[in-house]
């Protein structure tokens, strides 16, 4: 990811900031300024809780060039509790421990580094909800 794009998406990668549509109340992630549901302008920021469930997942054994050192890793579609689906890696969980429907929560993690001297990219991943947190809910 180039520096400008990385900087532009900071609020999305670090705090899951999207938008809420003032007309139809749809919650949008990532932000896109025009609501795909009702077509109206939607620029009001919305902070997602980070809680959701696994909608689908896959263990990747073969990865694109800049990710190959991290393979195998698990990617998923996570259904956020507010509605939208988001694509992300799962973390703190083994490939055999993942199941559709599992509750997960967002964490900010190191994604990859651009070589030894380059930018370290951070972003959201999802981990299974910790037992203590689940008990508080």
């Amino acid at each position: 990811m180039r520096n400008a794009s990385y900087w532009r998406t900071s609020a999305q990668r670090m705090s899951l900031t999207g938008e809420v549509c003032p007309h139809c109340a749809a919650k949008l992630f990532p932000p896109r300024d025009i609501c795909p549901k009702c077509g109206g302008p939607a620029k009001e920021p919305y902070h997602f809780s980070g809680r959701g469930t696994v909608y689908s997942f896959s263990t990747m054994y073969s990865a694109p060039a800049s990710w190959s050192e991290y393979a195998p890793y698990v990617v998923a579609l996570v259904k956020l509790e507010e509605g939208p689906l988001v694509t992300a890696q799962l973390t703190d969980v083994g490939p055999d421990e993942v199941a559709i429907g599992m509750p997960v929560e967002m964490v900010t993690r190191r994604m990859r580094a651009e070589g030894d001297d380059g930018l370290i990219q951070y972003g959201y991943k999802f981990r299974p909800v910790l037992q203590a947190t689940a008990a508080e809910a």
Partner: protein
Amino acid sequence: MSIIGIGQLPVREHWERSLQVMGAEAVVRALEDAHLERPEALYVGNMLSGQISGQENLGALIADHAGLRGIEALKIEAACASGAAALRIGYGAVAGGLHDVVVACGVEKMTDALVEETTTALVSAADAIYEGEHGLSFVALNALLMQRYMYEYGYPREAFAGFSVNAHRNAVHNPNAMFRRAISAETFARAKMVAAPVSLLDSSAIADGAAAVVLAPTEFAHQHGLCAVRISGSAVATDAVALHDREEPLVLTAARRSAERAYAQSGCGPDDIDLFELHDAFTIMAALSLEACGFAERGQGVRLAMEDAIVPGGRIPISTMGGLKARGHPVGATGLYQVVEATLQLRGEAGECQLPGCRVAMTQSIGGSGANVVTHILERMDA
């Protein structure tokens, strides 16, 4: 309007041929088949030339290399549907009365970069930031779909075997196919995982290729005594690029809309289609395409493979000359390989792959994981 000439290169690793050599060769073969020398326009479908070969401006480049310097020429891009998109633009140029004779060519050179680099380039068909920057490959997107499909409808992986078995068996007699050996369901079951549950035998391979067709008004074909296959339906529809933005990830809405528009234009419906060259880049895409285009109810597409409805002689033959899986999937060229093969079938020139008595063929190319879908319906012209 009609297809009056076709040309294709074998799909394989063409180490000795560059992008422009391949594209020009396909164009020249198609023009020879049409007994014509110079079209008025050339539309080149391609997805990866910039990323893999550092080369854009393909319209001008391939026109020049094909000996057609000076004509109207453009590169057309719709990810893995680029070839079919080039046909769509050519169709529009002729239907709109801009030109009488045009060539649509699809060309892809995937082997000029390392496999890992090509794999990265393919992610540009997805959402580069919200899918690509999380480490997903294009295979992984299809794996997410396949995993969810298996979960929602209760199928094991092995249920998908029929798509690959059929494709490979049909490619045995296609001299232009990349993989020409049959495989068994047992081999499918043991295949190595790429991104679970997608295995090597669920996925189409990296390859080079080029294919082209010549288009002209049907009257032109008659006047010149040329064999014509009529295009009776042509439609494009789009959907959100990212899987996570789709209304329903397991429904290929753009494929449904594109097919419905093509059906309406041609006056045909699913029951009229004698063969369907669908976009079987992955077995899950084949199942979802069959559902989207009205050949199976939702969640039932994979049954068509389980019950052999997709084989030659079945209710809806697909991948009749190998499909993306076995003939190969040089991404930007694929859409035109589908059309060339459908044309061969309708002309009765498909050799040992021939489906007897076919009159109406549908071709469908999917860009990305379902974001841009181009559908054509072709019909045999009776003498």
